[in-house]
Each structure stands twice: as structure tokens, then as C-alpha cells.
């Protein structure tokens, strides 16, 4: 509770003492938005951590060996991830549903275990030192980026592209029969998601003195976590995944009294949301929840005779 009291009683102190937390929320928000974009076009792709790894490693390596400015590093990382996104998307986007999810898991783990952990230049399993990191100075850039990314994605979903994605999400074959170029629009969503995710990855690498190739960072665990952001927050609205990301990132602080049992609480919360509030926290229906089977139905009583 101290956490929230300090948020309201001493915002400046809160900002100063929780800078890293705020930037992590921002990063997770950006990644969650990339997941939103992919889900919005009806594809269950878990490739985001792979693209984050590409963005992170490219920008840090350029900084280490070429000493180029941060801006250029991030741009190159993002573009490289876009190219990889096209190359991976071409064969993979023919798959649907769970098969797409498994194929993208194959991609991120092959990238992490097969490439990153085997190349001498990426530091293999030891990770990569990043002496020029700036853990505290990145907050403004990150928060501005989050807002810009949200705005762009929101505009996209409202336009032609968004209508096409909605149609594909609801029924791919019907969309195809209406003359929507399904393959192209899926590819656009996938590559845009890759660009956003790699941007978040490059920013995140800039915050840490160490690029860690662990499972929690660029592996399946991270992919599942990002999916959790989107589904928990609600993947119907742009803001949903960001709310989910903030909530999940803040969980250890909100339930600080749970201490070490935080993951138990997180898991139960996740099940509860998916069972009782399937559209996510931000979604249609105000605060309505699904009535559980054991909960008694509201009795409609006949008006009493006057």
C-alpha cells in the first residue's frame, strides 16, 4: 500500500525512486501494443521476443563496434527486424491459430538457442556487456515513444487497414471472398508488430548494462508474458494491452504483502480474468463479469399486487 500512498502524496519522489519501474512499464506497454496489433489481425503470433532480441543485439553491437549514435543504432535494429519479419512471415503466415503460435515459438527459440547462444560476437551464453547504457535517462524517450506508438496503432486500426484486419480476424475465408488481400494484410500486421517489438527491444537494451540472452528475456517465458499482457488487458481496444502490461508489471508492488507468493497470486488472477471476464479488463460491457455456474441466478419477482 505504501506504493500507492507515495504515488499520490509525493509524485516527484515517486518518479525519482521508481524511474526504472516506470521505464519498464513503458517498454512492456510498447511490446504489448505490438502484440495487440498482431492479435487484432487475427494471428496468434508469439514472435515478439525474437524481434526484441534482434533490435537489442543489433543496437548494442553497433554501439560497441561502430560507436554510432543511439538514434542510428535503434533505426538499424528496427529495420533489420523488419527484414527478418518479412523473411519469417513469408512461410509462417500460412499457418493459423495454435500452429502459428508453435511455429513462432520455434523461431524465437531457434534464434535464441541456435544463433545468439552460439555466435562469439553476441557473447554466447554469457550475455553482452553494454557500458554505454543509460538506465535513468531513457524514461522521457520511452514514455513519448509509448504515446506515439499507441497513437499510430490506434489510427491504423481506425482506417482501411484496421477494417481489413478486423474482417480477417472475424472470418478469414469470408474476408478473402470479399476481395480483401488476406496474405498482404496479415504480412503488414506481422511486420509492423516486428518493427514495434524490435524498437522496444532496442530501447530496453539501452536501459541495461547487460544484455541477457535468458529465457525470461527473449525466450518462451517472455513470449507468454507478453501474450498475458494483451489478453489480460483486453485485446479489443488499443489501450487494453497497455493496461494489462502496467498491471502485470506492477503486480509485485500491488500485492507486496504476498511477498514470495506473487506468482501464485498472478496465476490465480489470470485464471479468474479469463474465466469471469473473457474480454479482458478493458473491454465491452463496463464492469460486467460472467456469472459462474454455481452463482444463483437473479430472481425476477412478480410485482406485488397493489
Amino acid at each position: 500500500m505504501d506504493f500507492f500512498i507515495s504515488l499520490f502524496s509525493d509524485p516527484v519522489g515517486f518518479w525519482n525512486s521508481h524511474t526504472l519501474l516506470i521505464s519498464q512499464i513503458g517498454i512492456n506497454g510498447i511490446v504489448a501494443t505490438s502484440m495487440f496489433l498482431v492479435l487484432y489481425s487475427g494471428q496468434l503470433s508469439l514472435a515478439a521476443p525474437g524481434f526484441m532480441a534482434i533490435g537489442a543485439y543489433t543496437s548494442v553491437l553497433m554501439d560497441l563496434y561502430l560507436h554510432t549514435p543511439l538514434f542510428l543504432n535503434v533505426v538499424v535494429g528496427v529495420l533489420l527486424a523488419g527484414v527478418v519479419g518479412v523473411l519469417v512471415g513469408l512461410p509462417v503466415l500460412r499457418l493459423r491459430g495454435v500452429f502459428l503460435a508453435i511455429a513462432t515459438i520455434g523461431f524465437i527459440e531457434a534464434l535464441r538457442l541456435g544463433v545468439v547462444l552460439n555466435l562469439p560476437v553476441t557473447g554466447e551464453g554469457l550475455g553482452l556487456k553494454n557500458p554505454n547504457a543509460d538506465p535513468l535517462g531513457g524514461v522521457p524517450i520511452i514514455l513519448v515513444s509509448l504515446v506515439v506508438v499507441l497513437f499510430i496503432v490506434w489510427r491504423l486500426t481506425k482506417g482501411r487497414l484496421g477494417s481489413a484486419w478486423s474482417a480477417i480476424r472475424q472470418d478469414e475465408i469470408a474476408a478473402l471472398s470479399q476481395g480483401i488481400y488476406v496474405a498482404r494484410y496479415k504480412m503488414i500486421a506481422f511486420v509492423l508488430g516486428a518493427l514495434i517489438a524490435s524498437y522496444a527491444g532496442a530501447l530496453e537494451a539501452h536501459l541495461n548494462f547487460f544484455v541477457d540472452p535468458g529465457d525470461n528475456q527473449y525466450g518462451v517465458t517472455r513470449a507468454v508474458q507478453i501474450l498475458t499482457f494483451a489478453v489480460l488487458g483486453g485485446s479489443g481496444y488499443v489501450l487494453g494491452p497497455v493496461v494489462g502490461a502496467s498491471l502485470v508489471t506492477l503486480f509485485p508492488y500491488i500485492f507486496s504483502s504476498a511477498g514470495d507468493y506473487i506468482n501464485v497470486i498472478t496465476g490465480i488472477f489470470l485464471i479468474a480474468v479469463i474465466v469471469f471476464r473473457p474480454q479482458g479488463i478493458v473491454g465491452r460491457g463496463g464492469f460486467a463479469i460472467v456469472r459462474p455456474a454455481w452463482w444463483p441466478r437473479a430472481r425476477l419477482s412478480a410485482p406485488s399486487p397493489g
Partner: protein
Amino acid sequence: MDQQIVNAIFIGSIYALFAVGYTLVFGILDILNLAHSAVFMLGAAITYSVVVNHGQSFAVAAVIGLVASGFMGLVIEYVCLRPLRRRQAPPIAALISTIGLALVIVAAVEQGQVGSLFSWLWVDGSNSLAFPAGTVPDPTWHVGDLTLEASKVLIIPISIALMLILGYVMRFTQVGRGLRAVAENPRAARLMGLDVDRMITLTLVISSALGGLAGILFGLSLGDISPYIGRDNVEVRGLAVIVLGGMGSIPGAVIGGYLLGLIEILALVTLGSNARGGVAFAALFLMLVLRPQGLFGTRLRERL
């Protein structure tokens, strides 16, 4: 090299046993049960805990571990799947709710320390442990230049026998016929008078018990029991196995398990230990791209 191939068969048996449960649920419900790897871990952890902390014999412990894993199948069904099925939620919802359950199970075991809430379940936190020597008689044979340990060799007949029994049940008995009917078309099965909910519960109990058994055998033969064995060893490899063999196909999962064991060991021998994981996932990726129905899958179901 010969020894490596023998090892590949051992580890392949465990993969196959684990993946059979995975693929059974996918074949019948069309959902991925991501809590399966947590149940795998739970089976090993409970067995270890009953042997070491509660001082029972291994046979008793293994039975308790199996029953507990089967019970987790009930939990998965009643907590994670049935409420969603009732309102016909998309498969992604079941994916998330089983992830939530997996999170709870792993966190509960991970936090098991002396004096904590879960100390009856596990007391070693996130340490990696092996069964104390002599828990089960474990003679070692030398054939040529091969070293064969009984605990590893026994895995092969156990898994093959179980998979044969499962195959027999699925193909020739009334229960198996019911399960296949539910897999084919739940609504038609219900109209034919089948209790679909009960069939699905049965599937999950069988699948989870097999997963738990795979965990027990894994812990026994590899001497590595920790809250993370499910996540690190079989969670994603299990996916690779069922994709290699064809999603939902039981013989496919068996062959896929041995195939993955072989691929991994070959990568280990030819490319070094770092390449092992990467090669498995590259195989998974290529398989899905080139032949998404797997080696033995018939076709991908198109829903119109």
C-alpha cells in the same frame, strides 16, 4: 557414439511419454494444455518429497505422485477448461487459463521451504536434486562398451507398454470409441448419447497421469528434480515432438519423441552442446513450414 544413441533412446522415451498426454488433449479438445509441463514437474516433485521428506518407500511415493498428477487433470478440467467450454470461448482462452495454472503450480513448488505455506509439498526451494542413492535398486550392466543403468533401461519397456495399452484402449474399447467420437465431433457425440464432459474429464486425467509418470521417470533416471524441469526440459520440446509427429496423433507423438531425442543427440555429437536446443527448434520450425500436418498427421482440419 553407440552410448549416445542409447541415451537418445532413453530421453526419447521420456519425450514420447510426455508428448502422448499433450497430443491426446490436443487431438480431442483442439487446445494446447500448457499446464502439462507443470504437471510433469509436480509428479517428480511430489514423488521426491514423499520419499525424502515423508520417509515412504519409492513404490508408495510413485503411486502418490501418479494420483496427484491425475488429480491435477481434474483441476485443469474443472478450473481452466469447463467454464470456458460452457460459453464456447476461443482456444486462446484455454491457452491462457492453463498458463495461469502452470504459473500457480510452479510458484507453489518453488516457494516450498521449511516453514513456508507449501512445506508439505516441497522443501528445497529452487534447488535441483536427485533421489538419494538406493531409493530403487539400480544395477548397472556393461554390454560391449555400453553402460546400461537399470533405471534408464526400464524406461523403454514401461513407456512402450503404456503407449501400446493406450493405443489399444483408444482403438478397440468402448471408452476409446467414445473419445474418438468426441474428437471427431463433440455435438454429434452428445446427440448419440455420450457424456461429453465426462469423456473430456477422463482424457485430462489420463493425460495428466501420463505426464506425471514421465516426470517421475525423468527424475529417477536423470537425477534432476527442481521446480523448473518442466519448463526447461519438456514444455517446448513437447510441442516440437507433437508437431514432428502430427498434432493429435498418438503414434506420431511416440515416433516424434524418439526422433527428437535422436536429432538432439546427433546435434550434440556433431555440432557441440550449445547447438542442441537450437537444432530442435529449427527442426520444429522447418516441419511446420514444410509439412504442417507432421509426419503422421492426415490433414489440417479446415473449419468453415
